[in-house]
Structure formats: C-alpha cells, structure tokens
C-alpha cells in the first residue's frame, strides 16, 4: 500500500480537495477522516465494499448530505456545499445511483429539470434540440425524448441521467455506478464518454464495483473501507492487492475462492 507517493500525480493544484471529512448518521459514522484530491483531467475511481461509504461521500460532494466535520476546498477556496443547487452552481455534477429522475416527466423535462430555458415561456424547441445533441453525443438509443421516463429501460434511464449531468458543462462530474445497469455496448460508450470528459480537462469521480471498468479508464484508484481511506492505487496494481485492500485482508472470500479453484484444477490435473 503506497499512500503518499501516489496522492499527487498531477503537477497542478487539485480542483477539489477534501480534508478530514466525516459524516455521522446518528451513532453510525459512515465516513471518518476522508482525504481525497481530484485534479483537472484525471479520472479517480472510488472503490470499496458495500457500505464502505462511497455513495455517502458522493452525496456529501453533491450537497445532499452535509459533512459532520472536515473541510472541502474547491479551486483553492474553502467552501461548504449546503444544497444540490449550490453544488451544481459550483460545477459539480452528479449521476446518482438511484437515478433521481422524475418518471412522470418526459426526457427533455428531466434533462432540463431545474435548468429550463426561458423560465416564463419555456423554449421547448431549443430544449429538445439540445437534448438530442447531448444524447447523440452519448450515442444514446432513446426512442423519443417526448416519452415519459417511466417508459424507458434501465440503461436508457442511465443515459438520460448522464446526459443531464453534462448539461451545465461541469468542472467535476461524479458517477455513482454508471455502468451497473448497462449492456456491453452502452458500458463501452459510457467509458468512452468518461475518457472524453477527462480529455476536456474535467475531473471525474467514478464509483464502480467492476474492476475491469475501473482499470480501463481510471488514473488513480482510491479504496474506501468501513468509511476510511484504505489506500490509493494505480490501474496497474494487481487484483489481489486491490481486493485485499477493499476487503481488508489478504485472506478473504475472493482469495479463498481463487485458492480453491486452483486446488481443484491441480487435483484434476493429477487425475489425468
């Protein structure tokens, strides 16, 4: 585990810097002393087991939860994010795991929710054109942007959610399990998109349980375990080391399974 050397790969100052962030829900501390830096033009993967605090951390940055303690610096200035609209205003866009779409509204209305063009006489035509442009950039397969979101599949909803996060040209985009509900082609598209967003100079925070996807696009892999920092890795780190850090032991369910499979293979070979 090499923490400090990898923490600053880029020469520039971080856009977003967290120091000692803690969040308690009653007696439960969901996050304890989390440090995290995001630089422009890098993809940081946030990995960890269920309940490690990844989604809570994202929600703190999105203004959904207020941290119990700790400081957040955005472009060098100390800030507090009190509401989702403040986060959006700063340029921190989020795609939530529970997609946070309004099923009773159509795709255009969802993409522009809270950001409608021309508030006193909605410019439906311009919004529809922009919606199609965003969706086409994502190579999205949405049948009609005038259908309500309830009629879309899980993957289509995910694409709508991602399209929405790009609407305001954010500085940082956070994706909570962006590929969880997607097919092979859509997953590849989302990964392409993540790279495209990074190349535009934005910071990307991505939560994923899929190590293959994480290695494919991330510049750094930050591991959370039980609400604490548990190491920072490069995509080249071996799977055993990553899994060990995520589960907190070298002897874990994953390694035992791998060992058992190896044993089985060995005994089978012996028989032959």
């Amino acid at each position, binding site marked *: 585990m090499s923490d400090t050397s990898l923490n600053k790969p880029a020469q520039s100052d971080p856009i977003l810097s967290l120091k000692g962030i803690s969040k308690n829900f009653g007696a439960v501390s969901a996050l304890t002393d989390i440090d995290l830096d995001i630089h422009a033009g890098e993809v940081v993967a946030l990995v960890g087991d269920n309940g490690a605090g990844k989604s809570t951390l994202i929600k703190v940055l999105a203004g959904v939860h207020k941290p119990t303690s700790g400081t957040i610096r955005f472009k060098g200035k100390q800030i507090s994010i009190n509401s989702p609209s403040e986060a959006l205003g700063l340029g921190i866009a*989020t795609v939530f795991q529970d997609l946070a779409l309004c099923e009773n*509204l159509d795709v255009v209305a969802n993409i522009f929710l809270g950001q409608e063009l021309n508030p006193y006489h909605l410019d*439906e035509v311009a919004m*529809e054109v922009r919606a199609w442009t965003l969706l086409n950039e994502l190579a999205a397969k949405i049948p009609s942007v005038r259908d309500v979101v309830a009629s879309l599949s899980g993957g289509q909803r995910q694409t709508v959610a991602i399209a929405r996060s790009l609407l305001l040209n954010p500085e940082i985009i956070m994706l909570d399990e962006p590929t969880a509900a997607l097919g092979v082609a859509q997953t590849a598209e989302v990964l392409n998109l993540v790279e495209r967003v990074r190349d535009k100079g934005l910071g990307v925070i991505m939560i994923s349980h899929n190590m293959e996807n994480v290695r494919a696009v991330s510049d750094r892999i930050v591991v959370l375990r039980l609400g604490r920092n548990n190491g920072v890795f490069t995509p080249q780190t071996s799977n055993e080391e990553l899994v060990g850090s995520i589960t907190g032991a070298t002897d874990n369910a994953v390694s035992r399974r791998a060992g058992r499979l190896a044993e089985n293979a060995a005994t089978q070979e012996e028989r032959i």
Partner: protein
Amino acid sequence: MTSEPENAGPRPSQNTFLDRGDSRVTHATGIGGTIGAFFDRVRTGDLGSLPVIVGLVIIWTVFSSLNPVFLSANNLVNLLFDCSTVGVISLGIVCVLMLGEIDLSVGSMSGVGSALIGVLWVKLGVPLLLAVFGALVVGMFMGVIYSTLRTRLGMPSFVSTLAGLLALLGLQLYMLGSTGSINLPYGSSMVNFGQLMMIPGWLSYGLALLPGIGMLIMGLRTRKQRQAANLSVNSIGELVFKVTLTTIALEAIIYYLNQGRGVPWMFGLFVLLVVIMNYAYTRTQWGRSIMAVGGNAEAARRSGINVKRIYLSAFMLCSSFAALGGVLSAARLASASQQAGTGDVNLNAIAAAVIGGTSLFGGRGSAWSALLGIIVIQSIANGLTLLNLSSSLRYMITGAVLAIAVIVDSMARQSRVSHGRA
C-alpha cells in the same frame, strides 16, 4: 428533407429528423394517425379527459330525459354561475394535488373569504377592491402557515389543513358575530357581477374565436421553429382540423347559451383563471417544478429545485383561490353567512379536481380538470335539485360519483405503469 448524417447518429435510418432517428418507434402522422394514437393512449390507461367527458354525456342524457328543463339554455346559464364559485376553489386544489398534497380547509377558507367581504366592505365600509385584496392576503397567509408546517415541521398536509378547517370555521363564525349573516346590498356591482352581468352577445362570439386563433398562431409558430431546428412536425391538416373543431364547438355552445341569458362574466373570469393557470403549469419553469416535485420530490431537490419554495407557492395559491372562491360565492348569494363554505363545498372542490383528471397521487393533472370536474359535480347537484330530490340523496349520489372517479384514476394508474406510461 435534407440529409444531415451527423444528426442521424449511428442508427441506420432513412429519416433525417433529429427526433426520428430511431426506427423502432412508431409515429402518428396525419389526422388518421392522430385519432389512432388517441385510441392507443386510452387503451393503455392514459385516459386524459376522456372519463369526465363520457361521464358528462351520461349525466346530461339521464337528467334531460328525466326533466327536459335541465338542458334549457337558462338552466345551463345558472349552472355556469354555480360552477364559477366552487370552480375557482377547485383550481387552487389542483395546485396542491399536483404535489401529492391536499388542502381540506378550502371550504372554510372560502367561508372566511366571504365573511371578510361582509365585514370589511359592508360593515366597515372599506372599498370593495381593498376588501377583496384583504381576503386574498388572508388566504396567502394561511398558505404560508400550511407550507411552513409541512416543510419545516414535517406535518402532513392532511392533518394541518384538517386543523385549519376547524380554526378557519371558528374565525368565520367569530367574524360574523351574533347575527350570523351579513347581506350584500342588491344593485351593487358586486352582487350584479355574481347574479346578473352577462358578456354581450357579440363579444362572447368574438371571445370564442380566440382559442382557435391562438391555437393556430401558436401551432404555426411552433411548426416553423421545429422545422428550422430540423425536428419533425405535425401536418398542417391536423392543426386546421383541431382548430376548426374547437372553434365550431365553442361557437355552438355560445350560440346555445345566448338563446338564454348569455354567458356570465363570472364564468368568463373563471375560464380566464383556468387559462392562466394552464399556461403556468405547462409553459413555465414553476409549473415544470410543480410536476417534478409531485412526481419525485427527492429527484427535484437533487436537480436544484427549491422544493420548499414550490410547496410555499402551491399552498399560497390554493388558499388564495379558496378565498377568491368565497368572495365570488358571497356575490352569488348576495350575503356572507355562517353557511358559506360549509357542507359539501369542501368536498365538491376536491372531487371536481379529481373527477376532472388530476391524480391524488401527485405529478399528474391540469388546470382544465377543475373546469371539467366542476361542470360534472354541478350538473349532478343541479339535476337532482330539478328532480326535487332531497339533499340526502344528492350527497349519496355525489359521493358515489367521487368514488367512481377515484377508482378510475387508480385503475388507469395501474394500467399506465404496466404499459410504461407513468
């Protein structure tokens, strides 16, 4: 059709419109297609205003066969007068129902509104407009209280407005004092407005042309904008068909009413308010936010909508409309009495919104539902009165109609969910 390959995306498609890239989707074209799409929608549970129109036809057929006076022009004019007062209250109810909330105190609020007119205008001699404004301010104040209780203290609106119902009823009785009722002077502009004033014939025909002209202009403008933006457009024939149908229907209704006393100004005011609210719901950011909060409040909050302010505006509008409804009913009855706003006013207003197609579950509805629903409710009340039935039967029948309306709403909702129409 010009071809723009970068807009067509990676999908193989002959169609070059920005929104017609996906070949899996069927699109209705022309008049036949529109009618077909309408039947499709109805089959999958997207009923819109259909149940209420069917219900209205049934109700009117039954009542006119029992008593031919029901469909006489003058009776319908009376019906419109009655619709206007409770209809305005119902228009406010639509607003809170869209959020998935409820206001049970609108009846009492309207009673307070009418009592305020009696006390301020008749007793204290305050100028009429100022008195009306006072009633509206009290309404807004109640709305602030309800929304504060809801958003700061988490009190369900069902309970807070139930408490408000009693408190406002008490306030109404207190204001009216021992006499129990205050008569509004006959011959005053207020009472004339509520009982006599009709839109002149020529003006009513002219006003009935406006919706058609509006539809035509808006339709053509949208068409041009969409064409310029390379989006698909509806056929001109379809637009002309809709405009012609609307105009003929409206002119026929106006013609029939003008055979009697004509169209009441008060009803004109009600329709104007409906049109304004419809614009607000469908064409403004505020209306979009109302729909979003009603559909998924957490999603609305996360996309940066100030949910508390939306609640505040909805409850304020609802209570103000209720107060205005009370003012109109005082004008209609030429008195502010202890009975104003009691009895079935409350439930009629809520029932009208629901019967008209505004969902009790939030996120679905329209301003027109107040207009359509109140016509149904008042038709029943009016018809039963013409048949000399007692109010006991009237309550039972209205109750049954409300139950049917809610059943249709929840069944349609289940069907919409299974057909992916939300």
